[in-house]
C-alpha cells in the first residue's frame, strides 16, 4: 500500500505551503499521524470495490454517480419519514 511520508518530504511540504514545521521530530509526528489516515483511504477503497464486485479500475461510479456535495441529500434520502 502506501508508505508514510518521510520527514524530509514533510519539510518540503512545509516549505511549499509556508506552514512551519520546527524540526525532524515534529515532521515525523505529523507524518505518522497522517499515515494511518492515508492508509485508511486505501483500505476502504479495496474493501468497498471488492464488496461491490468492481475492479479497482472501475471509474464509472466516480465519474457518473458519487458527488461529495450530495452527502446531505443522501442522508435525507436514507432517512425514514417522521411519524
Amino acid at each position, binding site marked *: 500500500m502506501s508508505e*508514510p*511520508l518521510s520527514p524530509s518530504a*514533510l519539510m518540503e*511540504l*512545509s516549505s511549499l*505551503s*509556508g*506552514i*512551519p*514545521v520546527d524540526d525532524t521530530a*515534529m515532521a515525523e*509526528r*505529523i*507524518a505518522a*499521524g*497522517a*499515515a*494511518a*489516515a*492515508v*492508509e*485508511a*483511504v486505501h*483500505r*476502504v*477503497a479495496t*474493501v*468497498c470495490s471488492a*464488496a*461491490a464486485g468492481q475492479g479497482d479500475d472501475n471509474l464509472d*461510479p*466516480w465519474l457518473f*454517480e*458519487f*458527488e*461529495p456535495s*450530495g*452527502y*446531505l441529500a*443522501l*442522508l*435525507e434520502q*436514507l*432517512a*425514514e*419519514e*417522521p*411519524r
Partner: protein
Amino acid sequence: MDLCAAVDGLRQGRLRSVELVREAIAKARLVQLRHHCFLHIDAEGAMAAAEMADALLQGCAREGVQPPGALLGVPVAHKDMFEREGRVTTCASKVREPRVARRSATVVSRLDLAGVVDVGTLNMAEFALGATGHNATMGDCRNAWDPEFISGGSSSGSAVAVASGAVFASLGSDTGGSVRIPASANGVVGLKPTYGLIPRTGSMKLSPSIDVIGPMARSARDVALLLEVLAGADGLDACSSSRPRPRYTQEVTRGVEGLRIGVPRNYFSVGVAPVIRDAMNASLALLERAGARLVSLDVPEEVAAMAELSRAVVYAEATALHAQALRSRGDRYSPQVRLRASTGLGIPAPLYLEALQWRLPVLRRFVEQVFSRCDVLQTPTIPIPVPRRDETDVGAGPALWELLAQLVRCTAPFNYLGLPAISVPAGRDARGLPIGAQYTARPFAEAALLRVAAVQQHAVPLALPMPATQVASVENPPRK
C-alpha cells in the same frame, strides 16, 4: 432535578429563576475549584437575566397565559465556541486576537429565544482539537466524578458543568466524539445529531464536512426538549436540512416496545474491556425486558477504517482552516494542538477528496446492511474504562497513542457516516467512574435514540448528582 423538572417548577410558580441561577453560580464556583470547567462565570449578567425571567413568568401567571419560550429562566452554559453578539469567543485558545462578535450563533439565538439564562462560558479542548479534556493554554478540565481522571473532550466543560449540577444543559460540538466521549466519562446524556439537523451558523468550525452541534443534559427528555428548540434549517448554513421533524418530546415517552436493537458481533465488540462489556449486556437485558428485540449482526468490514477516514477529512480541513494562523502566529498554539492542526500537511489533496467521495457509497452500504436488520445499533461509547489524566497527557509514553485511538474508536465512525448517535449512562466501573452506552440509528432517526435512552436511563439513573464537587474545598485548588 433535570431541565424538564426545572421548567415545570418555574412555570407552576414553585421555583424562581433567581433561585436556580444563584444556586447554579454557587455550584459553578465550587466545581471550578477542582474541575476547571468554566472559562468565565457571568454572575451579574445571569442574575439580571433571571430577574427578568421571573418578572415575565409572574406576569404570565397573573394574566393566565403560557410564558413565551420553552426554557424560560433555566441556567445553561456552553463551551466557548459559539458566537454571542457583543462578546468575545475564545475557542479556549490564545491564538486569535480578541474580536467582538457582531451576531449570535443560530443555536445561541434559538436558546435565547427559548428564554435560557446564560451563566458563563465553558472550557473545552483548544479549538476542539482533543478528546481528553487537556488544555495547556486554559488549564485542563477534569472529570466530574474524580479530578484525577480525564473529563473527555472536546466538550469537556459542557459535560462536567452538567454532571456537577452547575447548569441544566449545555451545547457541545462533535467531530470525532466530542459530545459523546465527555458525556460518557461524566455520566450525562449527549446527542450527536445527524449531520445537517442543527445549523452551525456562528459556531466555530473544525471540519465543516463533519462538524455537528449537539445538546448535553441530565436526561433523555431534557435532550428531546433541547432538540426541539435547536433543530431545523436557518437558511444560512448551506449544510442544514429542512426536512420535517417529529415532536421529540412526545417521541421520547414512547418506550421501546417492538424496537429492534442491533448488537454487533464484529468491530464494536472487539477489544472491549470486560467491565464495559458487562455494562453493555446489562443495558441490552433491560431494553429486552422493556419490550425491545435484540438482533445479533455484523457491521460492514470497512467500519474498521472509518475512524481513520474521518481523521483524513478532519486533519485536512483543520489544517486548511488554521493555515494562516499557523504561518503567522503558530507559537501561540499549545504544542500538541499545533501538531494536530498541522497534520493535514501530510494528507495529499486527492486522498482527502477521495475520503469524502467514499463517504457516499460507504454510508449507503452501512445503512442498508445494518438498519435493514435493526432500528438502533448499540455499541460502547468508550470501549475502555475512563483513563487517568496523566496516562493521556504529553509525555505519557508510547501507550498514549493507542489510548487516544481507543477513545474515538467507537465514536468517530459515526462522524464519518454523519449518522445520529447518543451516549447514555450505563453504569459505573469499580472506581466509580461512569460508563456510557452509545446508540446509533439511520439518518434523522434521533427519536428512536431518545426512546432507547429514556428507557435505559429510567433503569440506570446515573446522571445525577456529583460526588466529587461535594468534597471540593478552597484549600484544595486545581493543579496546573
